[in-house]
């Protein structure tokens, strides 16, 4: 009898707890977020949930992590299966999903937001006007050049400020043996895979000021302009003199970093802000006592694409939890959300000494998973970036110039792809000297035939 009563009581409690739990679960919306897989994701989600609950907007966050390697492809495949989470982090291939009405227009949400509307950067506002489906509240992803401070000092040269000084500086680096291995095997500069990172700092020096340039009263793509030709001639000289690492085209970003840390290349470019800080931290781990110096670009930085975000977060337009999904994105732009996302884990990346935040060395390896808001709106209580990281952000802001590139229609996808492939192969042939600059006209013809004609024709209907 006693056993039966006990069992009945336990059963009643279990049912009540189950019903209560179910009722609670119904009240708290679940927001699924698909993004890069990172250690500590679950802990981050818990902290966001706790803070949002405290702020009166409880949500249950379900983070779906995808490994960074091959992320865009894995994401596309997952979404194609029809399993679409509430919030998606894209790194390309988002346009097709937007065309099919799967991505929410974020503008009305941002207008009514509590925090996000004030947290945006100028380029975010411009990009949202052109393409309102993707948002990445982050400084413009400009590239900055860095060199080891001790090498700069040893060279006896001042940091270069114009193109001639840059050339001399890079030449001096390539003729040096600052790594002390007894061989002149250090290259001046390295850009991984292609010349894109060189373009980031050298484009303006040759007049490549935008994707589309006006030449003889007509819009032409910069890639077939006289300015591009002059730039490639310069790269050809860097390559021929052994200043530019001749194996740049077979070096990916990992090889670039390895060569930089092990003294086989003097100058590399990195994305302003946290990435530059990660370079600094890794350099210091490998070469104790070393530091990085930020180099000013010779004539400003490459124009920033404001046609659309090239990466960022989107909301599923058909989600039942759109409000909760946007609430998460909005909360992450709030001071509380920024504190959680940008400072990392207490005890690992920072400590609290009373009310004062003290940054720990591991902060150099932490990066915000969501937003880095406009500093006029909110700044962290302590400098999270080193001087060089902070300087790179300031450099990006100082030289910010909006580009005139636009989003291509799907019909031109194969033309854009073909012209891009042709350009990339041709650039190496010019830079390596396999093609002489006298073959420029042939290259222009080839680029136009590969898809450039269709692109230019369309561009002339879009550009003012």
């Amino acid at each position: 009898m006693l056993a039966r009563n006990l069992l009945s009581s336990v059963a009643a409690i279990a049912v009540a707890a189950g019903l209560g739990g179910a009722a609670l679960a119904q009240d708290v919306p679940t927001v699924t977020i698909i993004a890069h897989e990172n250690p500590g994701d679950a802990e981050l989600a818990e902290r966001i949930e706790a803070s949002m609950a405290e702020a009166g907007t409880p949500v249950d966050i379900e983070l779906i992590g995808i490994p960074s390697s091959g992320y865009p492809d894995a994401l596309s495949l997952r979404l194609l299966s029809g399993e679409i989470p509430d919030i998606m982090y894209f790194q390309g291939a988002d346009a097709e999903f937007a065309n099919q009405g799967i991505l929410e227009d974020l503008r009305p949400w941002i207008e009514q937001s509590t925090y996000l509307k004030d947290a945006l950067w100028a380029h975010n506002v411009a990009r949202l006007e052109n393409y309102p489906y993707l948002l990445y509240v982050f400084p413009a992803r400009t590239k900055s050049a860095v060199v080891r401070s001790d090498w700069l000092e040893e060279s006896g040269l001042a940091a270069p400020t114009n193109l001639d000084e840059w050339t001399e500086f890079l030449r001096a680096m390539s003729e040096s043996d600052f790594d002390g291995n007894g061989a002149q095997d250090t290259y001046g500069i390295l850009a991984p895979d292609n010349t894109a990172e060189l373009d980031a700092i050298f484009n303006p020096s040759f007049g490549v000021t935008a994707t589309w340039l006006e030449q003889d009263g007509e819009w032409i793509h910069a890639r077939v302009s006289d300015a591009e030709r002059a730039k490639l001639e310069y790269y050809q000289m860097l390559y021929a003199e052994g200043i530019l690492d001749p194996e740049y085209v077979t070096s990916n970003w990992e090889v670039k970093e390895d060569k930089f840390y092990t003294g086989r290349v003097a100058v590399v470019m990195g994305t302003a802000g946290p990435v530059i800080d990660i370079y600094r931290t890794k350099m210091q781990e490998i070469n104790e006592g070393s530091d990085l110096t930020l180099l000013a670009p010779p004539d400003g930085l490459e124009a920033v694409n404001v046609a659309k975000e090239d990466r960022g977060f989107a909301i599923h337009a058909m989600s039942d939890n759109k409000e909760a999904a946007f609430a998460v994105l909005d909360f992450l732009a709030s001071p509380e959300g920024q504190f959680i996302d940008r400072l990392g884990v207490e005890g690992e990346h920072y400590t609290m000494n009373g009310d004062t935040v003290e940054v720990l060395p591991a902060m150099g390896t932490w990066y915000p998973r969501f937003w880095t808001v406009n500093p006029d709106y909110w700044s962290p209580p302590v400098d999270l970036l080193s001087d060089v990281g902070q300087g790179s952000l300031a450099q990006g802001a100082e030289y910010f110039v909006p580009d005139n590139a636009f989003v291509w229609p799907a019909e031109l996808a194969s033309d854009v792809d073909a012209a891009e492939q042709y350009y990339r192969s041709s650039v190496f042939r010019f830079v390596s000297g396999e093609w002489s600059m006298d073959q420029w006209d042939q290259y222009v013809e080839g680029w136009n035939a590969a898809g450039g004609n269709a692109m230019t024709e369309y561009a002339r209907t879009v550009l003012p």
Partner: protein
Amino acid sequence: MSLDEKQLAAHLSVIGNVPKTANLRTALGMKIRAWWPYYLMLLPGLVYFIVFHYYPIYQAKLAFEDFRIFGDNLWVGTKHFETLFDSRAFFQVLANTLIISAMKMAFVFPVPILLALLINEVRASGLRRFIQSAIYLPHFLSWVVIAGIFIAALSPSSGVVNEIRGWAGLSPRGFMTESGSIRWVVVFSEMWRSAGWDSLLYFAAIMAIDPQLYDAAEMDGANRWQKIINVTLPGITPTIATLFILNVGLFMNAGFDQVFNLANDAVRDQIDIIDTYVYRIGLQSGQFSLATAAGLFKGVIGMVLIVAAHTISKRLTGKGVW
């Protein structure tokens, strides 16, 4: 032991003596009942092929539609094929696919045969086993690793190949970045990876040759070379013919993993193949229907090639793959 009626019927059907007027369904049913353990073992393979090889054929209709993640796709007829055939890039990747496949067929296909013949001539069994193990090993490496090995070995500044060239007084060459050499790198790396493993089939075929044929050849005074030409090679010809036809069927598969890992911007236009194009246009640019059209085109060409190779082989040698 006597056979009951069903077993007898099944036996007759297997040996082909079932009257042609017999109901086919009944004959199949009798076969299945009689040989059910074997059909059961066949089942997983059958399911695999239906799910992963035949169902996707049905889904290839996407090439004639505009893809919709939600709702029905829109029928657009041959629009995507027209876009493909209007694109110079597609003909470039088609040409690259055919050239690379032809090079592999000409230079890679014979190597396992030669290897098997050579290994067969090694008399010391310990040495033979060592050689076999050594040449099988690359087969187990992924293309990511192999690409890393080749990029390092062919580096103009620190690669072992260019160091050897240096000893011979030759200037270093960027094999991975020169348009004239990259296809050879693709062919050679394929040979390095698969020749040893592929030789296994030929070696097995050689082992199956009746030893009395060698004894007879020896009694007729044949030397080792003559025995290879007159006994071994004819003995493995059916295997060579079958594998050749199967390779022709895979002709349009020039090697996605391999090209994807070996390609770089300097030479992509030389080794960009249909598979990498489909990947780039489909997955990276999100043009799924266009990519499916390219993939379907490749599949149809592959199908035509294998039927043609089978027919020609059947007429010339009396042997085909079905």
